[in-house]
């Protein structure tokens, strides 16, 4: 049995139900605030998108502008790249297996999009402005759940209340900056590329990517958590 150094055990008290209660309360309060402030938040995000869209030469209106249907060259080059990437991923070393899975999943999604546009391009039912506004709305909804999710998975631990407040705030602040810029990135790709990339952007580089980022940030927060001791002083 390892003995915990005295200077550590002296700082940490054992977990108590109040830790969980206050953690949940802080998380719920943050989420509620974000729910109430969501219209303002969306307004601010739209302003950010508009601010950047001009220097980037993007015309973001409900009218379908500047999101051309994929040209034959783009279709062929994308299909070739997707096929090559899929095959090449098979030759990567075994230690890159997670990356291979991710790359091949991206290839499958993009390959499906290429097939769709090669077969029935006019039946692609989504519009660029719908994609972008949908992404913003999904981002805002996701952001609202972030504090609560953090509270349930991390905030209920025995932590200083300042940390319980600061952690979610930092994560929320990160997403508040990231999400509108993610939308801008999508808009830029769709504008300079084509709607051919909309499926992969939505399915892989939209909410799913945000979920992964959240998991990464959660892991980072969890790594900051001081180790807890039991009543006997053992870990």
């Amino acid at each position, binding site marked *: 049995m390892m003995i915990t150094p005295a200077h550590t055990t002296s700082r940490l008290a054992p977990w108590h139900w109040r830790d969980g209660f206050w953690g949940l309360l802080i998380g719920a309060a943050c989420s509620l605030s974000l729910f109430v402030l969501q219209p303002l938040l969306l307004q601010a995000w739209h302003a950010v998108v508009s601010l950047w869209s001009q220097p980037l030469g993007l015309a973001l209106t*409900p*009218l379908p502008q500047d*999101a051309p249907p994929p040209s*034959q060259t783009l279709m062929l080059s994308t299909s070739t790249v997707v096929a090559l990437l899929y095959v090449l991923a098979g030759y990567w070393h075994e230690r890159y297996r997670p990356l291979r899975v991710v790359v091949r999943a991206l290839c499958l999604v993009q390959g499906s999009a290429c097939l769709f546009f090669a077969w029935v391009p*006019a039946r692609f039912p989504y*519009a660029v402005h719908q994609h972008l506004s949908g992404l913003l709305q999904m981002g805002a909804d996701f952001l609202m759940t972030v504090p609560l999710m953090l509270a349930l998975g991390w905030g209920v631990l025995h932590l200083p209340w300042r940390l319980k407040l600061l952690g979610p705030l930092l994560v929320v602040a990160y997403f508040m900056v990231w999400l509108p810029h993610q939308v801008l990135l999508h808009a830029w790709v769709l504008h300079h590329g084509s709607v051919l990339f909309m499926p992969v952007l939505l399915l892989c580089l939209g909410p799913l990517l945000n979920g992964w980022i959240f998991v990464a940030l959660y892991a980072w927060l969890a790594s900051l958590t001081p180790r807890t001791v039991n009543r006997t002083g053992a870990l």
Partner: protein
Amino acid sequence: MVLERSRPSVTSSATPSASSWHRWVLWLVLLAGLPLLWSERNALMAWAAPQPHGVVLLIPDDNARAHPVTQAWLDAAQEEGLPLTPMTSDRFVHAVARRESITGVLVPDTVHRHASDVWVQALETHVRRGGHALLSFDAALFGLHQQGYAAPASRLSRLIGFRYALYDALQQDTIALTPVLVHREAQSRMAIQPGKVDFKAPLAQALQPLGEWGELTTYGYAHLMYPHFRSEGPRDAQVWIRSPEGDPVLSLRGHGQGSVLFANLPLGYLKTRTDGYLLHRLLSHFARSVLELPVLSAAPQGIGGLVLNLHVDSNAAEQPMLALEQAGWFEQGPFSIHVTAGPDTFREGDRLGLNMPHNPRMQHLLNRLQAQGHEIGNHGGWVHNVFGEQASDDNADRFVPWLALNQKTLSTIVGQRLVSYSAPMGNHPDWVTAWLREHDFRAYYTAGDSGLGPTRAYRQGRPPAPGTPWAFPISNLQRIATLDELPELGAPETLISEFIRDLAQHVSAQGIVRLFYFHPASAPDYPQSLSVLQQTARALEQQGRFRWYSMQALADFLDRRLAVQWQIQAPADGDMARLHAHSATSLQGMTWVLPKGKAQGLHLSVGQAEIVEDPDQWRVIAGDVQQITLHWQQRQE
């Protein structure tokens, strides 16, 4: 250790693992596929190469081909001599993506309400690159799987040059129903025929500057009302037709290197409801003026003319007919002379009819006229006004015998079966058309589609059944169409005299055929008009620019014309443009009209045809052959 390690590798090369087998199979399949690809290389190259397209009618998918409105567009194009092929939305997006050449794009109303943003963007891209498009009304208003408007204003607004279809803002007032006003310049550019536009109508007089706009009219209605989308904001388009409130109803706009003609009217729908005039006019204008394409003329030798349809419906017509004969009026022609043969006119027993079975004078007259080459036809149901006022959709049993009796009586008198018909008082229930079809009639006069040439008339949204006779619409002068209706306009005879002269000159200049009709009974009251008609026709005829056509002869020609298959092959760089036409019977008299400024160096490589040079066009008149191939140098833009 070394031996132990080497054993598995020896074993694995002798007995391949499952994954090795898969790879071997994959390679074998690929190797086996190579010869197949090589043998089909030509087909693959052809598939991959950009395909040139002629004028295309965009439809959402193959199912839309059978829609009556699609058929209406195709029929109208065929009648205007424009080769038109349906193209699905997917094929169109492919064509734009592959930068395939498309001569012209038509987007119909009603059948193409739903469209994706990709399609809208493809259309915009096509026009921006130099394509020409004719769009109609509600094209692309809805999203692909939506039953509502896709955007606060039509997604085509930017292309068209103004915001319209503003459902979010206007709700029930999104569409207005009003008369429409035609700009004087548009009347001439679109070759809208005399009598269709009334520049002295009160609505037109209310607009400044005076005389610039005129109300579009039709036969029998105080106002011709059209549905159109309201619009808002600045208009970056040339407006040719507008509503009294100022909403554009027909507009033209250059976009990038191309142009868009937007008809804010359900053109195809209107054609299926007996008003095809604007659809036909716009198709003709688009083909001849915007695309500058060769068109297959609807007149033999491309010589325009009139069908003069005389309605001889009571004994009041007897003396005037004889007088016209004596005056030498029937030396021109052939005319289509339609007769009501019964003994009564206004009511049964009034004895005011021609009573043809017992009227030797009229019998002899008809025989003389027929011998002169005039066409004798059936003017309906035995007792003119009773049929005209009482025949309806549900009393065919009563009136079919009258039609049959009239037919039998006149056929017996002239010694041959009559094949053209006109409805007493224009009253033409659907069962009459069915009866005409069953009795192999070739043509009938109609009060619908006024201003059009002979057409396959749609009724109540349905295309005509196969074998239905050709409909010959009347040519309207504002709200009237003949001499004895002039008092309804309260205008002097000079109005209709001028109309007749202008109409004859118009059909001559345009190389088209239109119908004008009158009742000989009214001839003594309008001597000046009939004289103008006779003199104008004779003068134009002497110049070789006018002909009289009978309904039967023209119907026969139009049937032969329908059987002509033809296509234009656009020139590749430095090549000649090529037109190939063939028919299972004969191309005799079929005439292709080519704009002179666009084509030069015409010559035939196959068949026989006469190439006639007019001041502003070429006419290629086919001889009695089954196919011709024509080449010419096309002036590039």
